[in-house]
């Protein structure tokens, strides 16, 4: 990947004209190698040199864009294999599958089920972003196109699973404006499929009977000038699929093999048809390890809640915890006489707790302490959520503004009760439940 200074120097015009601001071409080359200057800053660089340099300095994995508007997503562009090295940049996107083999009733049921999952978690909209439309064996262009039309009605970005160039072409006629993925190129049809995808201006999905065939087909497509690809790494079983998916990513990032520098697509319908819990397990596995698009038979709340939570965790910046601003947050129309409830400034905790408090409908003042962006027990163990820090915060910020002298603390830090009673004279300290989910009942019982 990155060229060293000597390699870059060989490509410079070696005029030493200083126009780039460097004393010599050698000095310039060194700066470029360090990333301190851009190769374009030399006005005399030949086109061939520029081309070979941009090839050599291109990122190891391409960033591929699919969809339009709200349904536009970027896939790939990763630079590391493990999240502690650097943030993963492009989230796994999940697709629910439709197929021409399904009965009308089944299709209608799926179409009704897909939009049901739509909620917010810590500021992020969670929903099924993609719909996979599969062209089953024996289906003709009319049947497939009709299904594609129906799926399109959901307004989600489509992935077309179709290996027949004629049928694919017909289907793209009705949906290409939404920038779907056409997943269907393989060793025997790639030339025709390439023509169809390029003409429609969409990303092409490539598969192979094994990893070597996949590699050769990608290389052949690149030769035809198409680098707008997604690799379908689904194999005969989950073992082969996991191998393909890991090896593709590892070859690109660790071994700098750019032929595999594309996002991947894993189709769980092929691996665990009819077994929803096994698909759930595999969806988790391929979120952890390198699936860019994961296709599933269903995404109800049962799958969505843990899966989107996992994805949100895996794709966060390992350097900075997500925090909310400390302060008093009045909820459900609270005023100065309303109950005081306290917790930490870790965004996840705030999100979980405030959601439950809102659900209770009880007016109250939620006081967020500065706890270093850590969870209740973590900040307590770190000494950042203590009797002293809570009482100081209450005295300085809450006492002047709130008249109520009842404070509910998280059940996980019940041990702080005595200390807080001593440090906050006049306050009644109430130990709340351990889990936020129990808050609704707890608050209602308290009022009764």
């Amino acid at each position, binding site marked *: 990947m990155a060229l060293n200074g000597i390699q870059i120097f060989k490509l410079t015009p070696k005029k030493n004209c200083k126009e780039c601001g460097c004393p010599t071409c050698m000095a310039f080359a060194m700066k470029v190698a360090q990333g301190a200057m851009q190769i374009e800053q030399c006005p005399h660089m030949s086109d061939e040199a520029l081309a070979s340099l941009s090839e050599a300095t291109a990122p190891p994995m391409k960033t591929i864009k699919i969809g339009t508007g709200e349904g536009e997503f970027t896939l790939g562009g990763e630079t590391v294999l493990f999240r502690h090295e650097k943030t993963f940049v492009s989230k796994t996107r999940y697709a629910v599958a439709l197929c021409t083999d399904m009965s009308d009733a089944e299709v209608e049921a799926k179409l009704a089920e897909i939009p049901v999952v739509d909620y917010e978690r810590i500021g992020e909209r969670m929903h099924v972003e993609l719909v996979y439309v599969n062209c089953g064996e024996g289906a003709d262009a009319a049947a497939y196109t009709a299904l594609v039309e129906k799926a399109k009605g959901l307004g989600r970005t489509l992935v077309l699973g179709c290996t027949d160039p004629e049928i694919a072409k017909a289907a793209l006629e009705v949906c290409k404006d939404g920038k779907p993925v056409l997943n269907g190129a393989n060793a025997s049809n790639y030339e025709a499929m390439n023509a169809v995808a390029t003409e429609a201006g969409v990303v092409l999905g490539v598969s192979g009977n094994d990893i070597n065939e996949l590699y050769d087909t990608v290389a052949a497509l690149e030769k035809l000038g198409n680098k707008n690809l997604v690799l379908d790494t689904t194999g005969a079983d989950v073992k082969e699929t996991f*191998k393909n998916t890991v090896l593709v990513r590892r070859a690109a990032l660790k071994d700098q093999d750019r032929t595999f520098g594309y996002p991947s697509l894993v189709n769980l319908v092929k691996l665990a048809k009819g077994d929803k819990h096994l698909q759930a397990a595999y969806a988790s596995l391929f979120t952890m390890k390198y699936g860019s698009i994961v296709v599933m038979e269903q995404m109800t709340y049962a799958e969505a*809640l843990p899966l989107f939570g996992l994805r949100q965790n895996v794709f966060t910046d390992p350097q900075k915890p997500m925090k909310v601003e400390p302060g008093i947050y009045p909820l459900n129309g609270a005023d100065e006489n309303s109950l005081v409830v306290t917790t930490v400034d870790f965004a996840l905790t705030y999100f979980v707790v405030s959601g*439950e408090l809102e659900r209770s409908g009880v007016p109250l003042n939620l006081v967020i302490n500065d706890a270093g962006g850590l969870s209740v027990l973590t900040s307590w163990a770190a000494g950042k959520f203590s009797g002293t820090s809570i009482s100081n915060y209450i005295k300085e910020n809450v006492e002047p503004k709130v008249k109520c002298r009842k404070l509910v603390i998280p059940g996980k830090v019940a041990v702080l009760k005595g200390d807080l009673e001593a440090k906050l004279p006049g306050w009644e300290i109430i130990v709340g439940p351990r889990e936020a989910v129990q808050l609704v009942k707890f608050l209602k019982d308290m009022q009764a």
Partner: protein
Amino acid sequence: MPFNQKPQKFNAKINSVTIGSGEKTVTFGGDSTFPFYTFDAPSENTAKIGVEISDMGLEGMSEGVKAYYEGASTMGEIAKKAAAMEGADFVALILEGGDPNGENKPVEDLIAVVKEVAEAVDCPLVVEGCKNVEKDAELLPKVAEALQGRNALILSEKEENYKAIGAAAGLAYNQIVGAESAVDINLAKQLNVVTTQLGVDAKKIVMNIGSAAAGYGYEYVVSTMDRIKGAALGQNDNMLQMPIITPVSAETWGVKEATASEADMPEWGPQDDRGIDMEVMTAAADLAAGSDAVILRHPESVKTISKMIKALA
């Protein structure tokens, strides 16, 4: 040019630690690759699954779990059914009733439960304390004593009580020591170092590096496991080569996704399904990151994860 598949070979491996005695034993660890990377080197030993049961019986368990244990009224009967679960490799008894902030059951009562379970089943046993460091320091040495000859895994010694528990389990009663730390590679290593300094054989330690449910600070679990496996294999760090066991169910069945009733959250659908998927997805992620054994609760989760492990072996 054809694809040049470059295997990633390590000259180190995760320790093989066997628990149980007699006919029925189970071995954790043993591999020299990242989890399920059988394309780099063949796997010598697959990941294992334990079924969690509690001294509190079926109290607080989900409907599906209760249905599975129907008819079992004593701890011995519950243990038998747990051991018979499809996909189960061992039974994990958690003594949560010992928690001073909860039921605060006396140590003698808990030891009676341990003995009842041990008599009922001959499969490998893991016994977990109540998580309170002082109570565990008193309780777990007695557990280790009561289970002499069973070669059980005692979960867990922590930084605060490793001397009492590590010495009793690892030295006096010759059990396997579970070393529990809080999602941090340095803490995990430090605890292994001090435990071996007590004289405990490094090959008789299993780590619990901490866990969380998917979506609940889980990114730290992923990165801690990634880094531990990386150091154990890539740097041959023998203070991090202990296999990892992760109690999954105790985390996942407590979060809202699993505990909110369908009456409260109608759009979320059946509660048991949510609990199972939370357990299954967290377990799958743990295994992908580096757990050599997971502890689960629901029969459907045990069956599913067992299928996944076999399919990837």
